[in-house]
């Protein structure tokens, strides 16, 4: 039986791990992820996850090391972390991807110090964009639950075999409780069969490795990286398939899996958002549409693989696009990480829209409807006049931009 509970993002992520029957959970608490950690601890302690081993290592670095070992040994592995924790586990994050271990990690976004905050921006997960992890961004607790369950299925697909992050912003999603539909556990098991890696196994007869890295891998380094690139391309298809399958079984769907378009019909201007800002932007798009302005919204659900083809399709006939970046990249080629990727994705188009970039919500600053309206109006104005007064806006900056 499916049921409905009042859950915040953290608890929804813990429920996703429980419903997915994660077998090994190495985890280390850090604000704002702690509630995910404690909820799973409670599940295991109360015997509600009798199949699971809850491991409490000395650090996040050890967490990801244990996650790699457990995943290689054939266990379905879940962990979660944030900010400094993610930075600390960096080394093993690359090992996990390079060894093609389908570990699922929930990142409860928090600004990396310094200037740091307990509150969110998205640099901690975006920092991992080159490591070979899939990355899906969630806008509320329900999204977190559904994406968490889907993530296991996507990562464990033999066309993919890569680890995956599903991320949402701390506090804004992480601590904001909403009614969440929990699917029936047996239906989830039906959707997500037990994990069995095709190439890596615990069977001593088949297990021939002695360590997890080898100097010999350098010999075929280029080929191994290319294999990961192919897996990422495959993942675009798999994410769409899993999204469809999930929608059929549980009745909830997230766009086409990679992006979600909102009121994009005949739009001259588009905002692209990730995570929680999407909800605020929907409201602003509604308001502006009511006022007769041709604006639409694209929620970028998948950042890795980056949905280049889908974005090119979405901007057809659009005059101006604005990327809402809740991350920093000082000294970049222009704007935040999202705008950089989008610029690259759209560069090959013969007719390109204007591309604006907005820094907003940095180091945990709240993003208000007035901020989103400001950005939407800038994009609309660029679409109307055919010219952007500025490419990059520091939306909430106190003091003048130079």
């Amino acid at each position, binding site marked *: 039986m499916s049921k409905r509970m009042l859950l915040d993002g953290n608890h929804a992520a813990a429920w996703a791990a429980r419903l997915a029957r994660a077998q090994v959970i190495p985890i280390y608490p850090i604000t704002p992820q702690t509630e995910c950690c404690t909820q799973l601890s409670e599940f295991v302690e109360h015997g509600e996850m009798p199949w699971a081993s809850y491991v409490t290592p000395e650090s996040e670095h050890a967490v990801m090391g244990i996650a790699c070992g457990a995943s290689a040994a054939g266990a379905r592995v879940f962990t979660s972390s944030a900010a400094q924790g993610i930075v600390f586990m960096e080394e093993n994050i690359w090992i996990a991807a390079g060894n093609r271990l389908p570990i699922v990690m929930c990142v409860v976004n928090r600004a990396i110090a310094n200037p740091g905050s307990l509150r969110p921006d998205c640099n901690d997960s975006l920092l991992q964009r080159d490591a070979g992890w899939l990355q899906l961004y969630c806008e509320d607790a329900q999204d977190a639950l559904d994406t968490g369950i889907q993530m296991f299925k996507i990562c464990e697909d033999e066309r993919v*075999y890569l680890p995956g992050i599903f991320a949402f912003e701390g506090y804004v999603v992480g601590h904001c409780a909403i009614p969440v539909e929990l699917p029936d556990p047996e239906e989830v098991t039906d959707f997500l069969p037990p994990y069995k890696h095709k190439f890596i196994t615990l069977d001593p007869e088949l297990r021939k490795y002695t360590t997890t890295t*080898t100097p010999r891998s350098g010999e*075929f380094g280029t080929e191994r990286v290319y294999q990961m690139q192919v897996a990422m391309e495959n993942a675009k298809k798999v994410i769409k398939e899993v999204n469809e399958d999930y929608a059929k079984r549980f009745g909830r769907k997230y766009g086409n899996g990679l992006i979600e378009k909102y009121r994009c019909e005949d739009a001259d201007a588009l905002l692209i958002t990730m995570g929680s800002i999407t909800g605020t932007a929907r409201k602003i798009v509604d308001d502006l549409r009511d006022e007769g302005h041709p604006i639409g919204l694209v929620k970028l659900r998948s950042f890795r693989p980056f949905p280049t083809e889908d974005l090119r399709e979405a901007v057809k006939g659009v005059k101006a696009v604005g990327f809402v970046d809740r991350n920093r990249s000082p000294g970049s080629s222009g704007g935040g990480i999202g705008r950089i990727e989008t610029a690259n994705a759209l560069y090959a188009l013969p007719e390109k829209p204007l591309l604006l970039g907005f820094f907003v919500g940095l180091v945990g600053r709240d993003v208000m409807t007035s901020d989103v309206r400001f950005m939407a109006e800038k994009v609309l104005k660029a679409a109307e006049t055919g010219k952007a007064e500025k490419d990059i806006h520091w939306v909430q900056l106190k003091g003048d931009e130079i």
Partner: protein
Amino acid sequence: MSSRTPTWRSIPITNLGTTKTTVLNKTGDWRTFRPEVDVDKCIQCGTCVTYCPEGVIKIADMGVEIDYYFCKGCGVCANECPVKAIEMVKEEK
């Protein structure tokens, strides 16, 4: 490219479960000094076998045997030998 040359399509996607790292890779070739046993002095007490951090020394019928493929030349055996039967000799490259 010959048809036998491995490509991204033919090689395994992971190191795990596919290589015998410490079996395939000879790790003694970065040694600077090699331990050499003076069989006349050696009393075959087994102290070096116990102390060797790499586990490459064993007592065989012919006396002490050292696996030079894996010996790193750390010299612990020579230091611990109670009768000073092991000498560290510089490797000629």
